[in-house]
């Protein structure tokens, strides 16, 4: 039972265009959402986050949008650059048992074509 879903395993975008990565969740108790970026042979690194009380957070070329009613968030990268090619994981904070934990999606491989 996947609580955080990334339905697109891969996405290819031309350099300079917008990349839109999507994520859906089922647990309405999730209160904070994050995006991680992962290069091959490295661990995931934190990219951007958003609280459940907001609907948008921006950091340079990266913007995360949250639609709580649809239980959907998206990451926009504008303009996309070849160095953005990586796997992007969506994650959500919530309680599992007594501990606050991150639940991860399965990831989307973004390829930015020069």
């Amino acid at each position, binding site marked *: 039972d996947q609580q955080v879903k*990334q339905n697109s*395993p891969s996405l290819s975008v031309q350099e300079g265009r917008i990349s839109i990565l999507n994520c859906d969740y089922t647990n309405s108790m999730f209160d*904070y959402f*994050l995006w*991680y970026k992962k290069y091959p*042979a*490295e*661990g*995931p*690194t*934190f990219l951007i*986050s958003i609280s459940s009380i907001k609907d948008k957070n921006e950091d340079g070329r990266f913007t995360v949008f949250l639609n709580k009613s649809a239980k959907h968030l998206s990451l926009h990268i504008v303009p996309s650059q070849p160095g953005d090619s990586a796997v992007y*994981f969506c*994650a959500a*904070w919530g309680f599992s*048992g*007594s*501990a*606050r*934990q*991150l639940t*991860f*999606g*399965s*990831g989307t491989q973004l390829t930015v074509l020069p």
Partner: protein
Amino acid sequence: NAGVTQTPKFRILKIGQSMTLQCTQDMNHNYMYWYRQDPGMGLKLIYYSVGAGITDKGEVPNGYNVSRSTTEDFPLRLELAAPSQTSVYFCASSSLQGDNGYTFGSGTRLTVV
């Protein structure tokens, strides 16, 4: 500032062998985690710890054991390696609040043959 350090980076094990994956963090984080990532799959939680002396099972704990004797160290033990444990293993840590999520190590790529 080293962050989260995992050793070894690569290992090949024979079926039935045992090994310990090491994880150390220098950020004084209370929470530590072990994940595995199989090809084309997301991160699955194996075990986690909310502080020294306290550990608990995650989603896929079978075949693994952990201990947390200090705040800094969270080793993962494989007792009888099986081909199904071929994966990339990531250790992570976070502070109590963790609004920036986890800090991950660079991973250990394990192959069981």
